């Protein structure tokens, strides 16, 4: 009797122990429409926008909780998670670039207008706006601006000094100019970016003449002096903004002069040059056939995000170049999406774990019908995608 009771007890405990628990399992909420992502941009990719509009120039706020971008020229931002768009400018404003100066202040470079004859390009202005001011009025910070970039203490702005000369100005977050460099830069600056320590800047400079040439200059912000480090006589154009990394200065420039008559699209290569000067070399690690379009250095200065093609016929994809290891990693394996290749159409998150790109499906020449409202459609319009790239490869 006793042994039977003991056996029953043992069996009861075993059954109770193995029985399925009543504990409820949490079910993740369904992803909203804007989080559904088309295949080809990699696992973990999420959409940051949806709906119509020609989007571009993504820029993360310093804290990484909001992202600003342009839609059909005007400027908006939204929370990095779900949330509504917040408009910063009226719809008639056309911004070429946007940069955060603090978590509640944006600066915008308006698109350069052309003179009435269409021949001469009139330079742009930089405007500043603060979140929560209730109106979309912009404060003009500087006129006659050729290029701008965030710096260590505020915004760095290059002003046009006549047709063939440029000058560098440093401003604080409030827009106040606190240093105006008198040392002129010969030529028209098209882009600038700071060195990793923030004490110098690299400038892409264009010279107008019978034959247009491009230079790279380095400008020492402490000494107030600049110097040319590379002249690209045979390469017609520097595309976008040179990036100063811990392994040198990287830039995209014409691989070869465009074919006469403009029959073929010009090809661009990724180059590297030492900040001390010297002949630019093809960037190690990307391959001979690689065609680069736009580049951004990671916040830690060790990696370079590149939108480019493995060869001229390959689809555009996002790559990350480990600058020390000289190894190129394909982040997206896109075959049928159009990834925008504009110089400002990619942005690292402040933590360096993801890159935002702008992409859409290849537009159809026939009408397309979708079973969702226009403002939730992703694939048919250029939208922002956050693509995880992992941490540092070091």
């Amino acid at each position, binding site marked *: 009797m006793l042994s039977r*009771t003991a056996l029953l007890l043992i069996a009861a405990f075993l059954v109770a122990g193995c029985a399925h628990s009543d504990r409820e399992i949490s079910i993740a909420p*369904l992803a909203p429409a804007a989080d559904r992502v088309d295949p080809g941009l990699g696992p973990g990719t999420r959409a940051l926008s949806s709906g*119509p509009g020609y989007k571009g120039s993504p820029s993360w706020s310093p804290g990484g909780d909001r992202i600003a971008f342009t839609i059909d*020229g005007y400027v908006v931002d939204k929370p990095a998670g779900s949330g509504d768009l917040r408009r910063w400018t009226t719809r*008639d404003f056309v911004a070429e670039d946007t940069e955060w100066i603090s978590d509640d202040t944006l600066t915008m470079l308006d*698109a350069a207008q052309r003179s009435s004859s269409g021949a001469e390009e009139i330079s742009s202005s930089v405007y500043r706006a603060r979140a929560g001011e209730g109106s979309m009025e912009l404060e003009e910070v500087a006129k006659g601006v050729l290029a701008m970039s965030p710096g260590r203490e505020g915004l760095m702005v290059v002003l046009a000094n006549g047709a063939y000369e440029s000058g560098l100005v440093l401003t604080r977050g409030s827009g106040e100019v606190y240093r105006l460099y008198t040392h002129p830069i010969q030529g028209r600056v098209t882009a600038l970016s700071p060195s990793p320590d923030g004490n110098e800047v690299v400038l892409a400079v264009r010279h107008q003449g019978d034959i247009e040439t491009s230079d790279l200059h380095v400008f020492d912000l402490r000494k107030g002096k600049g110097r040319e480090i590379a002249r690209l006589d045979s390469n017609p154009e520097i595309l976008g903004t040179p990036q100063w990394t811990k392994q040198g200065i990287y830039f995209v420039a014409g691989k070869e002069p465009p074919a006469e008559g403009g029959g073929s699209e010009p090809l661009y290569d990724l180059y590297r040059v030492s900040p001390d000067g010297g002949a630019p070399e093809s960037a190690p690690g990307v391959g001979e056939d690689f065609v680069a379009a736009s580049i951004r250095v990671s916040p830690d200065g060790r990696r370079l995000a590149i939108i480019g093609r493995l060869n001229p016929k390959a689809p555009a994809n996002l790559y990350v170049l480990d600058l020390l290891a000289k190894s190129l990693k394909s982040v997206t394996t896109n075959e049928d999406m159009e990834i925008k290749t504009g110089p400002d159409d990619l942005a690292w998150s402040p933590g360096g774990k993801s890159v935002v790109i702008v992409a859409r499906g290849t537009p*159809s020449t026939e009408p397309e019908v979708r079973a*969702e*409202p226009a403002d939730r459609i992703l694939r048919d319009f250029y939208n922002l995608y956050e693509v995880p790239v992992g941490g540092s490869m070091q």
Partner: protein
Amino acid sequence: MREIVFWISGTALAFFITAGAFLFLANLANAPSDKSLTPDPSPRESGPDLTLSLDEDRLASLRPLPSQGLDLVVKNEYSKQLSDVNVTLDVSSENTALPDSRFYRQTVEKLPPGGTATVHFVFDLSALEQPVARPPAAVPEPSRKILEVRATTPSGVSAVRTAILPP
């Protein structure tokens, strides 16, 4: 022999009672604090009760001109009659900087179960006016037209279709 069985049974019983007590205490401490989440119900944009279809051949023949016509077919998949089905057509541009869209509305008074109604819209598909000249940097390619069609009943049954027309 009985003593041996007694001691073995007693030891096993004591072991299981102690283990059970520990298990009970452990479960008390780890009571599930997370709530069971129910999936977010997505807005009922396209339920099975009401379907909308657009004539895709006709869509391909639309021109960017005034007085374009398009038939929409609304079908009641519900088991009961639907009344006052509002059918709207919103004509807009892919270029969101253009301020206005054009809005059209018609009503289907009664739609029996399994029944269909054809709604004919005549609408203006000519270019929306650009209030001020904008540099081409803003939108460097021709914009497509967007036709967003919705059918909605007062009880909240709805369907939506969006057509994107190439420039």
